[in-house]
């Protein structure tokens, strides 16, 4: 089985690299998945005014810090992509791991936040608001974890100066995960 890349990958009829085209379609399919959850949440949220009292129990500070963390990790990955484009693999590697650090910080803050809320009795079964809260933030956290793992795998190649174009691909995915959080934060935490 020839391990060489098929000719198919070297063609670019659309003028865009195949990897980037694929990631754009991945982001397209993710938009409708998160869209499904958020549309359902917004429908219920607009129906029940009482939910703003329940939303008051969410830890807005943790949410805000997490927004800052994701925003900064978005900066790191785009700087990493910029470094990869200039073939500066050492800097690219550094920025990738800074982004992964950002992801871990996000997850640690979320872990503390959730354990605090659960200990106060706001579990996923408490009420429909909390069910949506944990489902939406949970699916988003899963995407953060998957993104961090893929970034780790890509960083191995980057250190060996291979597949530098993949930094941009994972960067696109990461920016999307950040955009989802940009909408999740006001929806879950702020709308009081």
């Amino acid at each position, binding site marked *: 089985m020839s391990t060489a890349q098929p000719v198919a990958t070297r063609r670019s*009829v659309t003028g865009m690299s195949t990897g980037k085209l694929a990631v754009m379609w991945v982001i397209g399919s993710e938009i409708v998945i998160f869209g499904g959850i958020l549309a359902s949440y917004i429908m219920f949220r607009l129906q029940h005014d009482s939910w703003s009292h329940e939303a008051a129990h969410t830890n807005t500070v943790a949410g805000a810090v997490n927004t800052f963390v994701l925003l900064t990790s978005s900066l790191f990955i785009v700087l990493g992509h910029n470094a990869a484009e200039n073939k500066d693999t050492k800097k690219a590697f550094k920025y990738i791991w800074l982004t992964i650090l950002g992801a871990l910080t996000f997850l640690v803050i979320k872990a503390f936040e959730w354990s605090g809320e659960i200990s106060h009795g706001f579990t996923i079964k408490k009420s429909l608001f909390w069910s949506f809260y944990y489902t939406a933030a949970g699916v988003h956290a899963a995407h953060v974890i998957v993104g961090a793992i893929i970034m780790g795998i890509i960083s191995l190649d980057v250190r060996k100066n291979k597949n530098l174009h993949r930094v941009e691909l994972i960067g696109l995915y990461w920016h999307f995960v950040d955009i989802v959080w940009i909408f999740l934060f006001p929806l879950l935490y702020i709308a009081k």
Partner: protein
Amino acid sequence: MTIDHAHDTHHHEEGFFKKYFWSTDHKMIAKQYLFTGMFMGLMGGFFAYALRMQQAFPGKTVPLYGVVTPTLYNALATNHGTIMIFWFAMPVLIAAFGNYLIPLMIGVDDMVFPRINRLSYQVFLLSAIVLIASFFVPGGAFGGAWTAYPPLSANANYNLTPWGASLWLVAVALEFVAFLLGGINFITTFMNSRAPGMKMFDIPMVLWTIIIASILFMASVGPLIAGAIMLLFDQTMSIGFFDPAKGGDPVLWQHLFWFFGHPEVYVVLLPAMGIVAEVITVFARKKLFGYKTVFYTMVGTGALSFVVWAHHQFIAGIDPRMANLFTITTVLISIPIAEMCFVYIATLYKASIEFSTAMLFALAFLAEFFIGGVTGIFLGASGSDIYFHDTYFVVAHFHYTFVPIAIIGVMAGLYFWYPKMFGRMMDEKLGKIHFWGTVISFNCIFIPLFYTGAAGDQRRIYNYQNFPHTNTEFLSDLRTFATISMVSMLLFQIPFLYNFFVSMKKGKVAGKNPWKSNTLEWVADSPPPHGNFKELPEVYRPPYEYSVPGRAQDYWPQNEKA
């Protein structure tokens, strides 16, 4: 489970496991999808057999199955629907034909992501295993209809299949993941790796349809994946997304499901339309009538398919005013579909038709699909849907669309591309027997069911003797006649299966281009080696240049310069 068959000799030898189970060759992955899809299709057919035997002879022991209790009946009906759509129609129509034809027809050696392609089949195989496992868990298989409406599907106290329901849902979710991976691979390969010179309108129609189907699937499955997550939480942790007692709303699931459900039926329709376009133009030796018209009609159908979904819910408790909106869009979508049928008929005008088995199946697809499409208007119009909803009229309607798509259309494709896939021709005599047997039996099943549906037979009723008005002599005779025709349709698949597996070794050796067709897959050898083409072809003209005046041959392959 993959059956040994002609393997390509002249490329370096791989181990049996590496070549058949761990291959990243798009043709091998296509065959894996094809065999798994056909195996699951036979299982779905067997469920339909047991289901119909119980309807025709209530309470009696069904040979090869046993007594069909109410619980088993619901599980049979649910999983017949689920398997036939998700594990037979989609894998065979989109994954098998898509994987096989896209690289070959755009003149390239493989998909852009071979390993993701292999992964998509593995996730699909896992989903099939999880679904089969859901039959053997305590409580039995899930029995809440393939639409899995909560609260029945969400609360084990109601569906009495705690494990079955969750495993069914996980299997369907895994199948979605498999087709998302596959879809992204198809679309990216299609967009980026076309042969030089192949402009937008030089692409064969079957590829356009498979790509539009993949885009429709990807854009519509998202909300249902979100819904599946919410339903899984409802099932496992009794959360209240769809439980009115906890503030949830069952109608939300119906919308999430059908927002995906209706584009889904166009996801399976379009590839079948594409296959039929290829087969008809080759055996009629005639240019496809109005390529651009067909292309824009397909795109129009795809776009409109996103605004019609609530016609499945006219009387399901949505606001009656919404029904007026959706009945308009539903009846409007009959226009592009009608346009497609007119164009296919127009292609036969002044043609020179050779009645090979593939052509017979393609023509039968059109004839049967006319009836399927036309009976859809009764259900799209809100007024008449009040009566017909959830009766056997609906069942007969969607079998008149699904069977032409998933069985007759697929057979046209198999008989047509079999020489390319396996290097040998299928036997035409056996093909004709299989054709007439299948098509006649199929009509004998569902024409009577239109009548029993109009007479008030509800869906998913395991014993019509409980309802005095449907327990009449005439109606039970119709149901028995439909069941016997169904058994005969299943039996007529035996000549096909024999022909399919025996011809791999004993069929007449087929050259590169047995049907004298124009598209690029006929430039490669039969079966094409790994890497498909010795040197990758270029394209100089559209795909359907048949019977061009002033040329000796009546076909003009895309890759020939002059």
